[in-house]
């Protein structure tokens, strides 16, 4: 381990670490809390829950988000659910099992202590959300309902139709707005953080741009929490919101915060396929659908060709001519294998020529089987002894509609095809980034006073995140981790008076931001920001996507460097910097993506193994499964930035004391 990376994992048994630590972590007395200022960037699950919780404790909090309201953060779009080890189903769940599933699902590239803590607090999250009025799905007895998700064999996922993220975020947002109303939080909507201010290596504030007026603002904070989400939009097309970006995290990185495992990207298997060049984003179809759907392609190539040419319909293909490839390859987990495995299997079939849409990049997600099963169950419930096929289908569709109605409607809206009658067409798309800012057990980056929470950090999901665990982590970090761990730092800050923002460090940071903006405005080239973003996205998707190899990654690095140069010579940012200017906002973000992309390729190139979402073609088993190299790569790759886009690799060794690491098998 390099001395620069101290993970600060507490001593003691795994089960005791968190309980003991949070009972002994230094406290800040209420009077002192009132004079300690915390800046929170981002208002998603992590940011909103942290803001509400810290304000309740008495800290002075400011929250910044680039959208027009805190309620718009992209956590809102999470569909399927949130995991918690409640064992309400009596099906063998426990804290240990959630911990184990998460470590295994992450292909043994996450920290044991962090993941165990996550599993421990997961149950509190559900309690907290219910108490704050989140209307989770319930059974007729009035108790909470659960569903299954990938990579697990228990039902531990709590949900609210296909809008779980929305309900959780609105719950956290309510808590945040309550504190705004009480004067404990000051909200800065339509503001984007563009620089971290450090003094003597310690984080002391930020520079933010008011997106309505274009004014640059200086804000002092005793601590700064980056809750800014992931960087999936480096691929241009992803399931992220249009505004999701890496800028805040990247500015922190360039100020010295290390970026960990940047190449660990999650490609989600069930998204609506790309329809044309105009495509601006991809839409996810929740993983919960895999619970009730079966994924297949034709077993015969001629059928796939006929489908692509629109000569036959999917329902014309006979049962015996269908290849339910996930059930075939992974009988134990079937359609519920983890995301990385399911995505690669879809790619493998499509690459082999079995894709079912005009581009050849789609597979079927079919609900016919379970529609009939549900229909039969309804018939039995109603005492119908000889229901007709039509009656069965009708009753079955009603059940499917109740469970997934909003997703089916969304599918029909986007594709113009009715998914109750024909199987959905789906294909993998970029969805989540497991990598992020390196943090210690306290969620602090290697810059004192600068924290990263939720998707913005790297810590819990290893090389692959399990479904319904992002919401869990965001709320765990914000509600139950940071309120304790921030005390370990802030108790030493009680003597630090608010630093006036005319301090030279603030002036220099603001000038730097102004310089970048002036430079972008001054290029006056010929191509739009999107033109460059789309080209970057293609390089990343083709060379640093679902499958990677050293030759293509090496090429990608030089292509990105060339593209970056072109961008800085030929981008055109219309309008003025001193007004609302969405093109300028995009330009600033894409400039950062153009640097991040290179680091991702570098990280992927350095990691000579396959693990989770990182699949290097050179490192696979005979059956085409990921082949890890625990001897040489059982570490967190933390990259330190140096001027001129060069990086130094630091390694944090991962120690497994409680889990026996093995080849991940879902067969």
């Amino acid at each position: 381990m390099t001395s620069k990376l101290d993970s600060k994992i507490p001593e003691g048994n795994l089960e005791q670490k968190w309980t003991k630590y949070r009972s002994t972590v230094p406290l800040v007395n209420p009077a002192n809390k009132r004079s300690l200022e915390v800046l929170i960037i981002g208002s998603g699950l992590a940011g909103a829950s942290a803001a509400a919780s810290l304000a309740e404790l008495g800290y002075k909090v400011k929250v910044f988000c680039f959208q027009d309201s805190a309620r718009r953060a992209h956590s809102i779009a999470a569909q399927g659910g949130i995991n918690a080890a409640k064992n309400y189903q009596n099906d063998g769940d426990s804290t240990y099992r959630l911990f184990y599933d998460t470590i295994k699902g992450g292909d043994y590239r996450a920290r044991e202590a962090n993941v165990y803590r996550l599993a421990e607090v997961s149950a509190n999250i559900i309690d907290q959300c219910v108490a704050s009025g989140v209307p989770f799905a319930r059974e007729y007895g009035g108790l909470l309902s659960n569903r299954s998700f990938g990579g697990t064999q228990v039902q531990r996922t709590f949900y609210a139709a296909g809008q779980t993220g929305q309900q959780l975020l609105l719950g956290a947002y309510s808590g945040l707005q309550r504190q705004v109303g009480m004067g404990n939080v000051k909200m800065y909507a339509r503001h984007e953080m563009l620089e971290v201010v450090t003094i003597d290596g310690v984080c002391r504030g930020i520079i933010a741009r008011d997106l309505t007026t274009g004014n640059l603002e200086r804000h002092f904070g005793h601590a700064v929490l980056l809750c800014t989400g992931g960087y999936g939009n480096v691929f241009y097309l992803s399931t992220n919101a249009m505004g999701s970006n890496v800028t805040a995290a990247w500015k922190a990185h360039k100020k010295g915060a290390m970026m960990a495992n940047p190449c660990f990207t999650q490609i989600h298997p069930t998204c609506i396929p790309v329809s044309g060049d105009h495509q601006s984003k991809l839409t996810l179809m929740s993983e919960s659908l895999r619970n009730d759907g079966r994924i297949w392609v034709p077993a015969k190539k001629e059928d796939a060709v006929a489908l692509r040419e629109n000569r036959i319909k999917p329902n014309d293909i006979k049962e015996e001519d269908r290849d339910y490839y996930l059930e075939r390859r992974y009988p134990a987990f079937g359609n519920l294998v983890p995301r990385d495995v399911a995505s690669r299997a879809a790619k493998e079939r499509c690459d082999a020529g079995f894709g079912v849409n005009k581009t050849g990049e789609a597979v079927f997600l079919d609900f016919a089987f379970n529609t009939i099963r549900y229909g039969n169950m309804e018939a039995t419930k109603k005492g119908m002894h000889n229901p007709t096929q039509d009656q069965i289908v009708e009753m079955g569709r009603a059940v499917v509609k109740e469970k997934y109605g909003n997703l089916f409607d969304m599918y029909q809206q986007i594709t113009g095809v009715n998914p109750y009658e024909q199987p959905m067409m789906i294909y993998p798309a970029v969805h989540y980034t497991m990598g992020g800012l390196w943090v210690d057990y306290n969620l602090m980056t290697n810059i004192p006073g600068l924290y990263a929470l939720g998707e913005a950090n790297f810590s819990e999901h290893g090389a692959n995140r399990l479904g319904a665990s992002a919401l869990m982590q965001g709320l765990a970090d914000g509600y139950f981790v940071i309120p304790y761990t921030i005390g370990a730092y802030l108790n030493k800050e009680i003597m630090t008076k608010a630093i006036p923002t005319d301090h030279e460090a603030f002036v220099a940071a603001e000038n730097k931001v102004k310089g970048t903006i002036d430079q972008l405005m001054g290029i006056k080239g010929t191509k739009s920001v999107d033109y460059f973003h789309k080209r970057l996205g293609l390089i990343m998707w083709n060379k640093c996507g679902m499958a990677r190899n050293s030759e293509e990654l090496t090429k990608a690095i030089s292509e990105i460097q060339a593209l970056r140069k072109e961008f800085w010579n030929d981008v055109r940012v219309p309008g003025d910097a001193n007004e609302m200017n969405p093109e300028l906002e995009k330009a600033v973000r894409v400039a950062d993506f153009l640097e991040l992309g290179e680091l991702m390729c570098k990280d992927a190139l350095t990691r000579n193994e396959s693990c989770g979402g990182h699949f290097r073609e050179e490192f696979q088993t005979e059956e085409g499964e990921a082949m890890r190299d625990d001897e040489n790569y059982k570490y967190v790759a933390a990259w330190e930035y140096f001027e001129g886009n060069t990086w130094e690799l630091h390694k944090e060794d991962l120690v497994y004391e409680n889990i026996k690491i093995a080849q991940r098998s879902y067969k």
Partner: protein
Amino acid sequence: MEKNLNLSLKVWRQKNAKDKGQFETYKVNDISTDMSFLEMFDVLNERLIVEGKEPIAFDHDCREGICGMCSMFINGRPHGPKQGITTCQLHMRSFNDGDTIVVEPWRASPFPVIKDLVVDRTAFDRIISAGGFISINTGNAQDANALPIPKDDADESFAAASCIGCGACVAACKNASAMLFVSAKVSQFALLPQGQPERKQRVMEMVAQMDSEGFGSCTNTGACSAECPKEISLTHIARMNRDYISAELSSAK
């Protein structure tokens, strides 16, 4: 199947809050019916940028109908001609070749225009701050299943809670009333046992804030619910009125 459209767009352009604003007409050609309405704007903006003109500013983020940020008033209807969807989910197959489409921002004095099609909806956040919550601090909760809630109540509460706060209800209303938005939040909590302790105070304070923001009165025309992308029901307004009256009659204040 996919085909291409040639369209004429009349779009509201307004440089900033002080500018008077006016319609500009743009021809857009070869628009695929598979495109979303916002992707058509992307294509137009791309062209404007290359031509050295200023692109049209509009709010949008998730582009999957849930964040509530997109807000275009299309041919006289918030979020356009289709029932139960947001602007970002509207696809061009809902239009015909040769159509003229008029696009405006939300029109309501509590939602002032910031630029072009972008308006300021922070009044909604202030209404939530006034009472749209259950006052519980982190860490105070009992076990989630200690409080059984009848499924029908939970489902009805969820239906109210699915409001995305886009403001289409206000834009659709001839009085610019925010009753549907406010009542959805009031209902969500009124239907749950957790919401009972603050039930009266909540409705009084949210309504007071709504009034002070300058939203108009409700005259029961129902345009809000008809145009709501999440099809929030008018019954929530009835529930809120009932709660408000009973709170007013029984309130000690």
